[in-house]
């Protein structure tokens, strides 16, 4: 019964996302544009770009994830289906988890798809590129998970947008540091399993706690 409900929510989210294709494309375009700004801003030197590459890609990922995050619970909150969800027997934390997962699929996985292009833009080596893809794979679900808590806290506010970034960006600091450290280690041909393991540990921790915190935050926002 619960599984049925969850898969229905998931299907509806996917359907909504693919009906509005332009909205689906916007975060990717934003992402590519932000990356393209960096060589223009700091100069096109290949070595400099290579050095900054991982950090730039991660920061652009953070920003484009934030763009999509705002919508995570907003529509459900506005049309009252969130309230219905709370009344149903389906646990709210699982509902939150499904919503976060579909956010990840819709607004972060495309980033992974265009990442080879960016590796060329920023002159990354093959080793760095694979390390980057690994960190994005392990680390980017954290953006949706931690982001979900922030969105749930601000969903009832009319002017939530800037506030959301203000709340979330400090929380993303460890993610950024470990991810770029893993890519840097790969650039020097050093083992980077330690940083990747830490990222994975953070992911597991967030996977366990973030849905519960989000559910509680949604209840606070709805009351």
């Amino acid at each position, binding site marked *: 019964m619960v599984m049925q409900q969850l898969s229905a929510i998931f299907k509806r989210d996917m359907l909504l996302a693919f009906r509005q294709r332009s909205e689906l494309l916007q975060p990717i375009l934003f992402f590519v544009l932000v990356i393209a700004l960096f060589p223009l801003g700091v100069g096109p030197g290949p070595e400099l770009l290579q050095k900054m590459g991982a950090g730039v890609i991660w920061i652009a990922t953070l920003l484009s994830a934030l763009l999509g995050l705002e919508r995570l619970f907003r529509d459900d909150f506005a049309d009252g289906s969130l309230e219905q969800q709370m009344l149903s027997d389906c646990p709210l934390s699982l509902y939150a988890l499904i919503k976060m997962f579909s956010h990840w699929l819709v607004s972060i996985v495309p980033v992974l798809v265009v990442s080879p292009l960016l590796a060329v833009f920023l002159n990354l080596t093959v080793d760095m590129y694979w390390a980057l893809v690994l960190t994005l794979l392990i680390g980017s679900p954290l953006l949706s998970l*931690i982001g979900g*808590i*922030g969105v749930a*806290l*601000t969903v*009832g*506010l009319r*002017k*939530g947008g800037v*506030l959301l970034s*203000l*709340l979330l*960006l*400090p*929380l993303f*600091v*460890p993610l950024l*540091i*470990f991810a770029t*450290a893993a890519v840097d280690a790969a650039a020097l041909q050093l083992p980077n399993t330690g940083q990747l393991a830490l990222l994975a540990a*953070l992911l597991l*921790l967030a996977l366990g*706690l973030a849905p519960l*915190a989000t559910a*509680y*935050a949604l209840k*606070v*926002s709805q*009351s």
Partner: protein
Amino acid sequence: MWKWLHPYAKTEKVYGLCQTLLPWFALPALLCLTTGLIWGLAFAPADYQQGDAARIMYIHVPSAILSMSTYAAMAIAALVGMVWQIRTADMAVAAIAPVGAIMTFIALFTGAVWGKPMWGTWWVWDARLTSELILLFMYLGVMALYHAFDDKQQGAKAAGVLALVGVINLPIIHYSVEWWNTLHQGASLMKLGKPSIEADMLWPLLLSLLGFVLTIATLVMLTLQNEIIRRELHRPWVQKLAQGKS
């Protein structure tokens, strides 16, 4: 066992408690802070390497230590508010956040002033400086979230959730930046075993640390009282209080 605590879920009781405790904290705070700081800034021996510039530590070290502890206190209040649904604990979260933010700012500012003559720069992206800066952002985030809500009760609960998420994240941030880069000197006071600081300098430092603790407690009680008054304006006891005093 915990029954004696239950009355303190009422705002009136907490206001009264703050009122009785206030002089017991405010006067010793003034005493400790003035003696500790005058002793440290004027009479304690100068550092053999850094000279008189190191005297700023009598302000910098207590505020830096306590900026973290204040966050812990805020998170405990948030947890109490969340688990037992005690309104006054949520109010305490809102009252502690600005005090903690000010402590963090003092630590950052005095650190920058100390860093200029010693390291030759106001700011470096060092582990402790970065994590202190992020701590400041977390305090500001809690305050911003609280003030964004029109319904203050809801706002205080939301701010509590954020404070708790932050407390899980704080050690992670702390260690991540520590492994990332470091220039700041190691701990000389807060470590196991004997502190690596001369007794002539240790005593004024401990005294001003105690002074800072008491000052923070005083400030928190005052802001909590203000918070209670502001949110309970419609209650008869607040109106009676206002009429009696004015």
